[in-house]
């Protein structure tokens, strides 16, 4: 019985961490159609921002939930103004430009922080479920991811800013005619997307050993999740992260970690073969 609870917790954690690492990308890709290959590096910078802040004596939760998103969001803002805004609507060019950016950020982080592994320890102790010890931090990640999904839904559906953003994505010309500058809206959206990437990197920082090239480990999973999710932002993210997270963890637990990774990729290939428009291209159509 305890074992099932533990496996369930691990599955929820797998889903939650996929949601977390994909949210920033989903916003940038899903809303403004920019393929941000530097997404992993934004996460990496979020991690470094957290570790630096903690080493300077800031409370770890303040560092993760506030400092890292703001810092990375601001970096994203600079990047958007200097590079991305010239490339809206040019999908392939954004890939090339952001790939260059990712190399640049890896080089920059190497110069500033050096090429050695750094990290901080997890702020929440482990605890027991029956005979099993689990990582208490898993629950924190699950809670943050759930709140994140709710917040995204609330902002996009419930607020005027969300309405303007959605409108601009659909018909920038009409939004402009109604007096909203699409340029401004894109900028704000990219800021939010970058900040979420930073948040994800920050929250995962205590679980990993961080090196400047850490971002590469996340980028593939994040893209698979977002592409398989399809056009609906929140529903797609939830559906595909739920599916892949469960598949990955079940196979990891039942067979081995290698098979877990393989199963995730096979599931992605099969899913995209059956549903080339992504999950929400067929189901939950028109939802957010």
């Amino acid at each position, binding site marked *: 019985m305890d074992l099932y609870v533990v496996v369930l917790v*691990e599955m929820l954690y797998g889903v939650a961490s996929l949601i977390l690492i994909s949210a920033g990308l989903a916003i940038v890709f899903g809303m403004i159609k920019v393929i941000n290959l530097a997404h992993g590096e934004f996460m990496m910078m979020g991690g470094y921002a957290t570790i630096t802040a903690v080493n300077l004596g800031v409370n770890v939760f303040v560092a993760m939930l506030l400092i890292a998103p703001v810092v990375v969001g601001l970096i994203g803002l600079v990047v958007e103004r200097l590079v991305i805004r010239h490339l809206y609507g040019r999908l392939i060019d954004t890939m090339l430009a952001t790939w260059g950016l990712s190399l640049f950020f890896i080089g920059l982080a190497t110069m500033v922080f050096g090429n050695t592994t750094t990290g901080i320890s997890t702020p929440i102790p482990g605890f027991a479920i029956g005979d099993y010890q689990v990582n208490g*931090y898993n629950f924190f990640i699950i809670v943050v991811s759930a709140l994140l999904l709710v917040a995204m839904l609330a902002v996009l559906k419930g607020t005027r800013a969300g309405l303007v953003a959605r409108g601009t994505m659909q018909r920038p010309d009409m939004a402009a005619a109604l007096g909203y500058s699409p340029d401004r809206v894109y900028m704000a959206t990219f800021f939010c997307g970058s900040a979420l990437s930073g948040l994800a990197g920050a929250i995962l920082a205590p679980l990993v*050993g961080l*090196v400047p090239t850490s971002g590469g480990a996340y980028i593939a999973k994040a893209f698979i999740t977002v592409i398989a999710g399809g056009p609906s932002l929140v529903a797609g993210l939830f559906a595909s992260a739920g599916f892949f997270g469960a598949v990955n963890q079940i196979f990891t637990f039942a067979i081995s970690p290698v098979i877990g990774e393989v199963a995730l990729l096979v599931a992605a290939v099969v899913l995209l073969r059956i549903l080339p428009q992504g999950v929400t291209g067929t189901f939950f159509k028109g939802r957010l």
Partner: protein
Amino acid sequence: MSLNRRTFLSSAAAVASASMLPRAAMAADSIKLGSILDTSGIFDAYGTPMDMAMRLAVNEINTAGGLLGMQVEVVAYDTQSDMALYSQYGQQLTRQDEVDVVHGGILSASREAIRQTMRKTRTLYFYNVLYEGGVCDRNIFINGVTPAQQVEALVPYAMGKSGKSVYILAADYNYGQITARWIQKFVADNGGETVGVDFFPLDVSDFGSTIAKIQTVGPDLVIAPLVGGAHLSFFRQWAAAGMKDRIPLASTTMGVGNEHKVLTPEEGNGIMVAYNYSQELDTPANNAFKERWSASYGDSSLIHEIAVSNYQGVMTWAEAVRQAGSLDREAVIAALETGLSIGGPAGTVTVDPKTHHAVLDVHIMEIEDQGMRVIETLPQRQPIDTQAVCDLQANPDDNTQYEIQI
């Protein structure tokens, strides 16, 4: 006289080659030591201290009067953590710079990229890194520990402190696979049982389900030959789940690149390891070495296992040149094959004539407050894994990396 392009080129070439002559003659006045290491890119945490150690060794040799009355000159190339550059710079070192010896290579892939070039051009080659074992080639000398040397010492100690059932978590490439096999063998030899083996691709950084799985099996001991930054997460997540005080942990890789300094004391304390070197090794040789390092570089905290291996490699070569009284490759190999030994910071290093590997002291240690506390020293361990497959005395023409079957 009309000067057309062809006559101009040929006369220019003649002038150029004439001007080369005195340089070629002068070259005999210094000995060229080629070094090929990743001092930038993702492996620079390994390569930079190795480069520093090599330069320190050469400086010491030169200050003491050089070799055979000549100064040693370093010709170093940075391979930027790019395996393709190894073959390029390997060619350059041997054919253009015509160095007398090459020290270097970090990953096994980089060693294999240049080993045949060294052999073909008859350039003596030293590979100074702990690795998976099995290379059998008369032209190469290797002085890092091999899995059997480490595991043979580590397993009985770790099992003695914990119990008989062992769970193995290993990196999923040749080093991890081979090391896992050796661990299984020594666990069985010591009357224990391997209750589980899991392999992890190098970019896996989430070990949650594995930690749960280990608990369902309930071993007495976990041995983790995990490699790299992503795998460091395991040690962190293991501690975060509160497992550290429940099941003891041993590793054959933790700390090679000073990873133990990244973990907090709460995360790292008590992990059992076995290496040739530790900064905490309290011997006169090591204390003097650390002082000389600090005098040259200001701070000795960068020293790690393979930097010391590289230092010992250069010193072994220098001693062989001294004994041979010549730079001739055959003479130096003959001197090395006498079973020559030197005293390095990590203890005595003896060349094993049969395999061209090293007989080394192995220290069993526990990680304690971001240092490695030495518990027991096992002097002069033989590279028994490579010895089982390789005999260069009987087959001097052997040129293979054996996959050692156990």
